[in-house]
């Protein structure tokens, strides 16, 4: 698996536009800036939906209405975040593929996606019974708390990718080398 991921990353790195993107000071930095701004839009909207479910804001407005109205700007932010995130990966594929932080971030993203699907399904099924209450029912609040923690984890691990503490050129335990997928420096 690690070997296949590394081959894929090396293939991307061999493409001319991957190198050009990495070497372009302005393009790379603008993509990274746009990525951060898109995260602000996506998570800004998501956090306000979550805060409403926890009874921390706009409790006099039906919760499902907040979720429905903020869905579009949130998904615009999500789309831009994914596109710019992919571009950032394509610019530095080999190092990122072998980053333990990127791998943890990816797992957290998948879990956050499953949690969001579960939350949406449960909310649609039951909103009519509680949407005017201050807080969502407990199972939904648990899901919302998980959402906040998972996305905090995504932000933290995303930030940590920039640090080389566990990069493959460093001496590290066998487990860490395997988890990071270190096959070359």
């Amino acid at each position, binding site marked *: 698996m690690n070997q296949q991921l590394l081959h894929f990353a090396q293939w991307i790195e061999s493409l001319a536009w991957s190198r050009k993107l990495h070497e372009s000071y302005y393009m790379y930095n603008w993509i990274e800036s746009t990525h951060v*701004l898109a995260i602000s839009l996506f998570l800004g909207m998501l956090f306000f939906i979550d805060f409403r479910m926890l009874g921390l804001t706009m409790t006099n407005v039906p919760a499902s209405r907040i979720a429905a109205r903020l869905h579009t700007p949130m998904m615009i932010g999500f789309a831009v975040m994914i596109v710019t995130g992919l571009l950032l990966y394509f610019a530095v594929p080999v190092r990122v593929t072998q980053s333990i932080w990127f791998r943890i971030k990816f797992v957290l993203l998948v879990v956050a996606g499953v949690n969001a699907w579960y939350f949406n399904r449960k909310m649609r099924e039951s909103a009519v019974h509680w949407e005017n209450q201050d807080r969502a029912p407990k199972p939904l609040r648990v899901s919302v708390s998980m959402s906040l923690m998972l996305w905090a984890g995504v932000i933290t691990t995303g930030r940590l990718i920039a640090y080389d503490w566990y990069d493959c050129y460093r001496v590290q335990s066998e487990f860490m080398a395997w988890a990071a997928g270190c096959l070359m420096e």
Partner: protein
Amino acid sequence: MDLLVYFEWMESSLLGSIGKTYGGVYAIAQSVHLMSLVVLGGAVILTDLRLLNLTLKDIPSETVVSEAHQWFKVALVSITVTGVFMAAAVALRLYYNQFFWAKMLSLLVGVLFVFLVKRPLLCSAPHADLSPWTLKLVALASIAVWFTVAATGRWIGFS
């Protein structure tokens, strides 16, 4: 007035030493800074999209503005605390970084704009009594200022 002496003091302070010595603590402060930026950005976007009548149209704008402002203040305090901690560790480098000064200036403009222009205006009368163009202009100015704060902040790391 040359501020260099304050930046030198900051970097040699206990705060600066902690940030430089413990990379993990510095990274966590960076993450909290980013999460606070997300909440602040969310509060600004929520308010401004409502003032532009682009979302939450069926919720009174007074409600949206006032509720989002509570979170704006929380995020601003958190951004300031984590920002000072992060700055202390690399104070001298920041002193010579033009994007740092651009960010500080735009942040000052943003904070003054919120507390001296936006809030007083939006609290002065029911929004229905204010000109829709005034509300839209305030929202666009707010988006422009906070976009500049975020963008210049990110570019500190590139220069």
